[in-house]
């Protein structure tokens, strides 16, 4: 990694941290569990690193098979994270989104 790339990466990191702080502090405590599982699913983005490891050619032939195997395990783990994480987050958020027009029968009766 050359210095220019490093500096750019540090900028990205700092700005993402700042933005993350701004965005996430607005999430109400009501949604903290879905938030945790959503950010967890999003960080399953390490899947893309795993895909490269599992499928790309490497310069040293000796390392090829170990790299593929490590990559395979990593792809599996990261996919569990992504699929499971998004799936469960959606299940939770579906429950929160549910509208209940009949929520207050007393009020209905009064009409």
């Amino acid at each position, binding site marked *: *990694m050359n210095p220019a790339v490093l500096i750019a990466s540090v900028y990205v990191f700092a700005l993402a*941290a700042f933005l*993350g702080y701004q965005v996430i502090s607005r999430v109400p405590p009501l949604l903290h569990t879905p938030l945790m599982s959503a950010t967890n699913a999003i960080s399953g*983005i390490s899947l893309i690193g795993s895909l490269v490891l599992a499928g790309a050619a490497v310069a040293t032939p000796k390392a090829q098979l170990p790299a593929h195997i490590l*990559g395979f395990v990593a792809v599996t783990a990261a*996919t569990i994270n992504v699929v499971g994480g998004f799936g469960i987050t959606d*299940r939770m958020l579906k429950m929160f989104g*549910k509208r209940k027009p009949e*929520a207050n*029968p007393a009020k209905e009766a009064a009409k």
Partner: protein
Amino acid sequence: MSLTSYFMEATYLIASILFILALKKMSHPETARRGMFLAEGGMFAAIVGTLVGAHIVTWVWIIAGLALGSIIGAWMAISVPMTAMPQRTALSHAFGALAAALVGVGEFLVHANQMTVVTRGALGFEVMLGALTTTGSLIAAGKLQGVIAGKPVQFRGQNALNLLIFLSMAASFVYFFVHPEAVAFFYAMLGLAFVFGVMLVIPIGSADMPVVMSLLNSYAGLAAAATGFVLSNNVLIIAGTLDGFSGFILSVLMCKAMNRSITNVLFGGFGAVIAEATSDAGGVMREISLDDAAMQLAFANRVVFVPGYGLATAQAQHACRELGELLEGRGVSVKYAIHPVAGRMPGHMNVLLAEANVPYSSLYEMEQINPEFPSTDVAVVIGANDVVNPDARDNPKSLIAGMPILEVDRAKSVIVLKRGQGRGFSGLENPLFFKPCTTMLYGDAKSSLSHLAQAVQHV
């Protein structure tokens, strides 16, 4: 740069933007679900982009991994009950961190010789954070599931041993950093990180799990961000940082809600010193019969339910909602008071009650509901203990002194649903139970609540 590489980078940029938009939409329950569709789209785009642009030569491992992971992931997403959400999330942290750690090891295998100093540094952080989060999360999941005893595991010299492990790990990292050809030190660092993750979590009691969950969330994210530095990949840095900071913010909130510092949670070993520190509150606990409790509830104007971890263990959320609806049908105002650290992870109670169809407009945060307790006729405490312990407010010598609580003792009357007369997981005496306004209803929360509902119907 070839065309496919540009395409790949474009999908990464799109994914980054979609992730941020998704988290922004998390600020409201009405928009949150649509937000997650954006994030899913972003993830899909990034995967397609990688497969197109990354010069893949062998597909079999990729397809096998994607298929196996999808099956297990989908099974977990569909089959896990809401009460088991904390352990599922902990497991998920373990998988994410494992992936980051393995990518780090793979990167070391493939590129060990041409790594620059910066890459080696980032690689060290990636592998250490990834490995310790993997085992730490597994232990946390085991404790939450009850496979491993939830009680803090402590022994003499524990902190000294942990420090020794940490220093050896750090020393291995430094040696590898300076001498990249020292392969053994890289693997020593990896192994020590796995051990350190175990040591970090075993001394922590179940009651502190909300903090630990948030911290592990943060570490898993930072491991992914470090992966981004190793691979010079911005979408990894952005997504990992978002996750890392979300975990960090949650840890701080959880610590605040317990009035403790992160170091105290990690190294304090709550629950060990308690036996001697409890003051004997004295007095007697008054038991109430089901019918009397039902009578009180049915003729109240305002009722507040205060759920705790006991609600989750008893799976009583549906019974709770049924009772609440019956009361609302009689014109009683019913609210639910949620303490930030009630349960085993941030927001645990909200999810359970949402599952039981309680509308989120009936769920109140601590600051909102506390001023309303003096005008509340009956506060029903369901399997909660420390979060309603008035000692935290009144007794500066108490172990939980200064922890903000739900002030149910200010309500006109309190009914406490509890399994038995014991002191609960923290072992602290709770003076609330001895107050003249408090009555106790013993038994399993689920059956107590459904019996209460039947009794209310017959009032």
